[in-house]
């Protein structure tokens, strides 16, 4: 994303692929956002996906 608080489709190309090292060091480019829930467009997009991984654990969710 060009800006984390910007529109979800406001993107630029990735400079390179994500490596395993990126993944192991939490620098893959996704993670928990600390803004109040639902305040950023990207947070709304995440919520719509109905997946875990951006908040508390939920055994009933994928």
């Amino acid at each position, binding site marked *: 994303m060009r800006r*984390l608080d910007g529109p979800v489709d406001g*993107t630029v190309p990735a400079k390179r692929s994500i490596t395993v090292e990126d993944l192991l060091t*939490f*620098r893959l*480019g996704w*993670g928990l956002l600390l803004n109040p829930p639902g305040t950023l467009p990207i947070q709304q997009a995440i919520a719509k*996906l109905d997946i875990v*991984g951006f908040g508390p654990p939920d055994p009933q969710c994928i």
Partner: protein
Amino acid sequence: MRRLGTLPLFAQPSEQWFYTTGSDIQGVLIARASGAALGDFLAERVFGPLGMVDTGFFVPAPKIDRLTTAYQPKDGKIIVSDEPVGGKWSRSPRFEQGDAGLVSTANDYLAFARMLLAPDYTTAGNFFRPLP
């Protein structure tokens, strides 16, 4: 992974640290690389060797009477957020998360912490190998 893949990255790879989501993807990677479900892999490679007999992604029925009730604050009071029987940890999860969601005991957690305190990597055995 398919749903996650519809999201744009929040930053260029390698440029910014973000919490927790990477561990879920690591869990998927472990499952794919090992050919085992993450819970089975952890049982065989971590919990079993450490004697963490009460740790897993859910509490089986014979043990459910040992699981505590979870509470959370609401409107200045405390309410029940999860009951043991029939609750979220009473059955297998839909997705075994690499970042959270294990249920355990203080004794099991002590075994894990003691492994981390091992004075050198050889004592910790197969759990850690220093990177070359």
